[in-house]
């Protein structure tokens, strides 16, 4: 998750820019269901900077977790010990997720396509897979029941494919009003954060388009690392660079987390 070595003072890595940009998307009054890995880092960065009242929920049942170190798993002790309350897993999925009480679901992806469908199940054919991935876990219903969904994924042609091999988490299907036709009343994916840019679904076609580029990134980099002819929004903006505070808090968080995981006190 973190880059090897520290960048020069006053600079940042592409991965750090991705975490910071993702964190900025969360609001102080959001109730966020947090995926493990990069989403967890971004959500906790938000909580430790501009959104101190952000409610973080992990699918293991912890509500209002305030971890001082990033958890390795979705059910680390730190999440339960710092939570306001911990409910059972059936309660989490029935009352809290399905009940529509979560404003943002924050997911990662192995593959993502132009209509923001996500695959974390299998590369290749399901019955004879090239690579068997872990599977959906909570993501299929996080994608359908949260009011909106943010995705964080490093930008590569392996991840950004024209069509996913398996729809684990439904984004916009084949585009336009596909969600509505399935009876899904939630917004669905509204933001994809990568190490190069931000993408958002086009208001009508629902195809992902680049709406902001991170500092120093060229259009060509995004084009060559996207598996379909990606469109750029007309009012393309530039992501503000990470502030010293954002970078400091993120680096502290990753450093603390690394020490804890290695078994140090």
């Amino acid at each position, binding site marked *: 998750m973190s880059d090897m070595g520290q960048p020069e003072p006053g600079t940042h890595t592409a991965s750090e820019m991705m975490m910071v940009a993702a964190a900025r998307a969360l609001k102080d009054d959001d109730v966020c269901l947090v995926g493990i890995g990069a989403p967890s880092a971004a959500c906790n960065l938000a909580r430790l900077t501009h959104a101190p009242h952000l409610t973080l929920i992990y699918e293991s049942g912890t509500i209002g977790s305030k971890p001082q170190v990033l958890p390795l798993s979705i059910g680390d002790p730190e999440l339960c010990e710092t939570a306001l309350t911990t409910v059972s897993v059936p309660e989490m999925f029935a009352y809290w997720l399905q009940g529509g009480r979560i404003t943002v679901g924050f997911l990662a992806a192995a593959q993502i396509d132009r209509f923001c469908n996500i695959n974390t199940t299998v590369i290749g054919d399901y019955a004879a897979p090239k690579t068997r991935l*872990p599977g959906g876990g909570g993501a299929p219903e996080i994608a359908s029941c949260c009011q909106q969904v943010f995705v964080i994924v490093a930008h590569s042609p392996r991840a950004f494919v024209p069509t996913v091999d398996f729809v*684990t988490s*439904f984004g916009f299907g084949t585009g336009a009003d596909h969600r509505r036709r399935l009876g899904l009343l939630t917004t669905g994916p509204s933001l994809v954060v990568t190490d190069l840019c931000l993408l958002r679904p086009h208001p009508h076609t629902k195809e992902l388009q680049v709406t902001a580029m991170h500092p120093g990134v060229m259009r060509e980099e995004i084009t060559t690392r996207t598996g379909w002819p990606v469109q750029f929004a007309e009012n393309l903006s530039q992501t503000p660079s990470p502030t010293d505070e954002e970078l400091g808090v993120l680096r502290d968080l990753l450093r603390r987390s690394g020490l804890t995981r290695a078994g140090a006190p």
Partner: protein
Amino acid sequence: MPRILSLQDAIADSVHDGDTVAMEGFTHLIPFAAGHEVIRQRRRDLTLIRMTPDLIYDQLIGMGCARKLVFSWGGNPGVGSLHRLRDAVEHGWPQPLELIEHSHAGMAHAYAAGAAGLPLAILRGYAGTDLPRVNPQIRFIDDPFSGERLAAIPPLRPDVTIIHAQRADRTGNVLLEGIIGVQKEAVLAAKRAIVTVEEIADDLRRPSPNSVVLPAWTVHAIVAAPGGARPSYAHGYYRRDNAFYTQWDAISRERETFLTWMRDNVLRIPSSPPPRARG
């Protein structure tokens, strides 16, 4: 009322070849010691149910105990793949593994339906995903009141559920606390339940009148297995051994290193918990 048994006797008594077995514990309180005893007793053709297969099912699958897996997320949390699970699915080693794949929401609802004695679970789920295409147990029905289309799946009803908990009293009442996952539902859904515990005490020491307690008469066997959830953890007793979860990636990646580790750390060590990670 449950009998208080040794781990060997509890597994020999309740887990049979061909059984449908659920070992639950959502990251926390994973019944590793019991799973290892199943491996030592060389059970075969099991249908294993578990939301998050974790290392314990990686070990059971790699040792050839399982014919089928009912699950919703099969990875090493925060680390990567379960290599033995992948080897079974991708290459059929040591034998092919049939997958019945769900989402967490589906599994959670299916356990709850099993505990409630209902013939099906209903949820707002799976819409638009490819899971119904590969799992014929996922169907859709129309709500007779609103007309909304909802997912319907069969309940989970294990022959035997095995969980690990903090404590039991001498009558066999069981206390769980912390991340309690789906264990209560998994026990109530099962024909038989084995509970391994950190300690059997005179007093259950319930922290609150609303504590999660399984009454003795819902449990078939109680086993004292201190450390029995390692390398996962037991809230109030010991921490998760994240270093071991990371080391498992290298241990399990190749068949030979996996088999050597299992021989040295499970097969040759009767009924003891797995060792802690070194370093």
